């Protein structure tokens, strides 16, 4: 126990030289093991565990006592929770438990996909903008313009122009997040490119693409990972909001936003129809945010001392 420092070793020199460049996983040593790591990072442990459970629900949705989430039974409309229907039934008699469990798939898929799409697009644009001066100006002005449009409204406008599908929802949400990723990556690159090791690579005759991919990219990844987690969380909320106001996933897909939208009419008398997807969504987003906070503390020791 006493061999293990509770805080990462003091790296004053490194922090002053490159505040954007924390050492990746400074506390992870093979001897400490996974358990020790999780104990020292409770946010990652809690958020990660909940997320793994949800992922399990999403993957094995068909084997968790669910029935067809689209099966209509008009004779059993808006029943309260019972041993037969754990979460009750909705206005057209569909089993709410099954719908909520299948809804996990939509939420996780949208969250992860948006985080991936926005990160990769923003990363590519940010790397290029940070390194090539003549690209920087025009590209960043377009990004400023995109950032001036409130994200949900941008997604609404895009969804109004396309046929509703989960894939289109992912793209509509991701577009609003690209400029934010792009700015983050660009600022990492701008501070990195002034550092001696990049200068060294230039002197050694490395080509620009090689410098970007081999030297700059790995060092810009840490802050991006944290950002991607937050994007995932907010994308899940945005998907639910879009579905809720009728601009999201098609109505036949059991997404949590859709279930809530359908439950709105009856909500004053049958609040459980909205409550189950609402609680599921909140827990999921909370888990992802916790994971993000944990990663931030881990990857940026400066914020860990603050938080």
């Amino acid at each position, binding site marked *: 126990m006493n061999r293990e420092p509770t805080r990462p070793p003091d790296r004053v020199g490194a922090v002053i030289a490159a505040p954007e460049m924390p050492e990746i996983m400074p506390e992870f040593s093979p001897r400490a093991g996974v358990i020790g790591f999780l104990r020292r990072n409770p946010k990652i442990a809690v958020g990660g565990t909940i997320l793994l459970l949800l992922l399990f629900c999403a993957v094995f949705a068909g084997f968790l006592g669910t029935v067809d989430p689209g099966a209509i039974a008009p004779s059993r409309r808006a029943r309260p929770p019972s041993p037969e229907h754990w979460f009750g039934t909705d206005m057209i008699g569909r089993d709410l438990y099954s719908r909520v469990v299948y809804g996990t798939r939509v939420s996780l898929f949208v969250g992860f996909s948006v985080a991936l799409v926005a990160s990769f697009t923003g990363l590519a644009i940010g790397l290029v903008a940070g390194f090539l001066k003549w690209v920087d100006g025009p590209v960043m002005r377009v990004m400023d313009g995109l950032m001036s449009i*409130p994200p949900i409204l941008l997604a609404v406008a895009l969804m*109004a122009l396309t046929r509703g599908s989960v894939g289109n929802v992912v793209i509509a949400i991701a577009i609003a997040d690209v400029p934010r990723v792009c700015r983050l990556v660009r600022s990492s690159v701008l501070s990195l490119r002034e550092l001696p090791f990049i200068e060294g690579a230039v002197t050694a005759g490395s080509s620009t693409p090689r410098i970007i991919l081999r030297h700059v990219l790995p060092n810009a990844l840490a802050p991006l990972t944290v950002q991607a987690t937050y994007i995932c969380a907010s994308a899940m909320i945005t998907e639910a909001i879009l579905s809720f106001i009728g601009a999201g996933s098609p109505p036949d897909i059991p997404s949590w936003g859709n279930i809530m939208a359908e439950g709105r009419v009856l909500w004053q008398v049958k609040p459980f129809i909205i409550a189950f997807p609402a609680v599921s969504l*909140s827990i999921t987003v909370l888990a992802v945010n916790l994971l993000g906070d944990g990663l931030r503390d881990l990857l940026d020791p400066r914020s860990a001392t603050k938080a």
Partner: protein
Amino acid sequence: MYGYIARRILSTIPVVLIVGVIVFSLLFVAPGDPAAIIAGDQASPADVERIRRTLGLDQSFLVQFGHWFGRVMVGDLGTSIFSGKPVTELIALRFGPTVSLMLVTLTFSVLVAVPLGVLAAARRGTWVDSAVMVMAVLGFSLPVFVVGYLVTYIFALQLHAFPVQGYKPLDEGVGPWLHGLVLPALSLGGVYIALIARVTRAAMLEVLGQDYIRTARAKGLGLGRVLFLHALKNASVPVVTSIGLGLALLIGGAVVTESVFAIPGVGRLTVDAILQRDYPVIQGVVLVFSFVYVGINLMLDLVYTLLDPRIAY
């Protein structure tokens, strides 16, 4: 100083122009035929053609954009496909409730979040700090409509303290107006409070470590005075920035809040327009709110020069 203000105002012109280009290009970059999608599945070819002409999709991009942007600059946002009324008029009719909702939420959120952030920083590492941080995580994680239904269930359906939904215009008195906006503001403010409280706390922590804070305390100034006058003033720039940037969250959230609480504002107009696939209305709303957002952030940037005169140099 005046040079800075002039430069800052001029620098918003390209942003406004680019926002215009982006909003207009959405029609052209959307996959498939937007006119056919907006017209719906039962539309006749003539309908599709009419919509194509209304949206300006029948001519080249540059020609149409020139026409369109020229009209936007004089306040003409086109006409609604569904009602045939000018979009500007439709938005103007619905602006009051939305502005009321946002103003009340903004005031309420700042009044709650800033003291919370200051308190958390002053009591760093104690249970007060942890409680504020837990609230912030919850604020970020609970979607607007979830909070909305929760507070309505508790305060309206169970306690009957506030109306379940509806909106009273300001003409009917400040009391009823404010009374109807309490629950909507409470649900819309969640994320905003979380954001401002977090930024305030981080900015305060930075300032509280400074020598002049210790000096102020050492010469016998009270804690409250030091925190709110000396420290908060120096921590105010990031706080004001977060208030401005967070407005984007408020604008997006207002759309949902208005549909949960049946407030007849611009958000409600947007939701109706989505259901009717009334694209000119959606386009107009996106454009107006983006301009409002850019404008408010410009004003806040100018406020910085009052808070921290060094910025202007």
